[in-house]
């Protein structure tokens, strides 16, 4: 059999969007491999989740009710138990913070191969091996990996596959897996939101966003001058916030804020996938970056492949 087991992700009582994308990737792979798509959902209101996960292409949903929220020790035990029962050829999980907190441990426990951050999945015709496409060299290259062994554990990049739609007629059942409490060595004690500041960048119509290309903290002056001239709000990519040059509430991206301004001017930002996740919904994206191969140009509408230290003051001048 060449079944697929997809491991859904949720947080504080809500399924995460990537879980529905996972169903699409899983259904495509199951169709190509000639197997069924099984979905596992562990912890939280699993019956509610199962109803929402029962979409087109899903053959079975297996629920494991244990605890209110994600705990990696519980998840790994539960999914390993399901793998023993179902013997899938492929296990898919999201390439999210919690996907990467659990899938590697699952692969090790199953003595299974692991590929993370997949952007493409295919089944090789002759041997039936899984072939996974992923980026390498910081996104400068892409490669294909032949995966030897089953079940292959793969985490898929968020927003690469569309969300599954429609209603399925999957069998929903409570899985018969036992959780060994002695194997639970982590305790989630709470959650904390990153404190908001005086400015909410997600409400801004025009964002002047600055990245690593600015090089030094004192160079932020030219960004401030531009933002003043345009009556725009300043935001930043991760390295600027990591360096403490701007507060955390200015960070755009996966671990920061999702912004949807009318105009987003990305200055010295390469456009790593984590950053793009936070700003791809902007109406008009302008990139100022010397590197013509920078991934920011994949999503930009307009670009200036020139030195920001020349372009930014010249732009400010235009509005003075």
């Amino acid at each position: 059999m060449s079944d697929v087991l997809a491991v859904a992700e949720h947080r504080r009582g809500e399924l995460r969007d990537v879980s529905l994308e996972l169903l699409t990737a899983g259904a495509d792979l199951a169709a190509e491999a000639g197997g069924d798509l099984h979905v596992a959902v562990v912890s939280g209101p699993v019956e509610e989740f199962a109803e929402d996960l029962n979409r087109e292409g899903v053959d079975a949903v297996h629920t494991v009710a244990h605890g209110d929220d994600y705990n990696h020790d519980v998840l790994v035990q539960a999914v390993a138990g399901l793998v023993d029962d179902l013997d899938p050829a492929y296990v898919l999980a999201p390439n999210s913070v919690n996907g990467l907190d659990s899938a590697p441990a699952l692969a090790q426990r199953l003595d299974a191969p692991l590929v993370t951050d997949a952007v493409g999945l295919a089944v090789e015709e002759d041997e039936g091996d899984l072939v996974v496409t992923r980026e390498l060299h910081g996104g400068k290259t892409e490669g294909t990996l032949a995966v030897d062994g089953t079940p292959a554990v793969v985490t898929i990049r968020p927003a690469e596959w569309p969300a599954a739609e429609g209603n399925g007629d999957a069998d929903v059942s409570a899985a018969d897996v036992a959780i060994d409490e002695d194997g639970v060595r982590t305790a989630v004690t709470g959650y904390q939101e990153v404190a908001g500041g005086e400015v909410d960048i997600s409400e801004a119509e025009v964002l002047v966003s600055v990245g690593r290309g600015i090089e030094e903290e004192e160079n932020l002056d030219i960004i401030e001058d531009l933002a003043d001239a345009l009556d725009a709000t300043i935001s930043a990519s991760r390295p600027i916030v990591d360096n403490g040059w701007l507060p955390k509430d200015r960070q755009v991206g996966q671990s920061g804020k999702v912004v949807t301004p009318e105009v987003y001017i990305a200055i010295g930002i390469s456009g790593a996938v984590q950053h793009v996740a936070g700003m791809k919904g902007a109406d008009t994206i302008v990139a100022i970056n010397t590197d013509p191969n920078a991934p920011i140009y994949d999503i930009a509408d307009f670009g200036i492949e020139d030195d920001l230290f020349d372009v930014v003051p010249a732009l400010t001048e235009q509005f003075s």
Partner: protein
Amino acid sequence: MKILVTVSEVSSVDEEFEVDGLDVDERYLSYDLNEWDDYAVEEAVQYAEEHGEDEVEVVTVTVGPERADQTIRQALAKGADRAIRVWGDALADATVLDPRTKAQILAAVASDEDPDLVLSGVQTGDDSWGATGVTLAAELDFGWAAVVNALEVDDAETTASVHRELEGGLEELTDVDLPAVCTIQTGINEPRYASLRGIRQAQNKPLDEQTLADLGLEAGDLVMPLELTDLYEPESEGDATIWEGSAEDTAADLAELLREKGVGA
């Protein structure tokens, strides 16, 4: 208390480059200490400074070729006490060094070293597997916490209380029993620059080179489940309008667009 820090040398690719077979042509690659590991080293060194450097030993471990010694010396110059580097022909010949293979080797070192805490960068900047630390924890049967941006160890050194950085500005507060592996996120601290004194001292700190055989591993023992079969430069998906000319010209083009959209008016 012994803290083992995994340290990787990562490559960065020049703006213009060529692919040669299954790798980027060496002429276009440069190497440095992985950014995430820089934060992991800093976290360990700060812990040692706070708790007494006689009480805490910080050991780094690297899977990499001799070239990586330069990177390892950086970690020693920033305050790690000693370093171990593992390499072997089987690794040099592999098309890809995947997290399971890497974790298997790191686990062999960790079994010898018997650390209380292992710190590992969340991911490497080049291949971004993001999985080696957690795989290592599972291999060692340690607890773990991934994507940690705040770390406190209790006085008895039995539990680590961490903040895990989830998506969307949310942090999960988690307690994990020691020994454990924590994968360290950028921004958790401010990594220091190595002082001249640190750089000098690093030259005299032990850097122990080990082969797979030294660790009791035969080439055939390595899991190595992945094979890179093709590598290429992805086609740009972009259709951006690129303005050409001097900075003054391109700034004027952009200003015109912004004015059309009512910006800065």
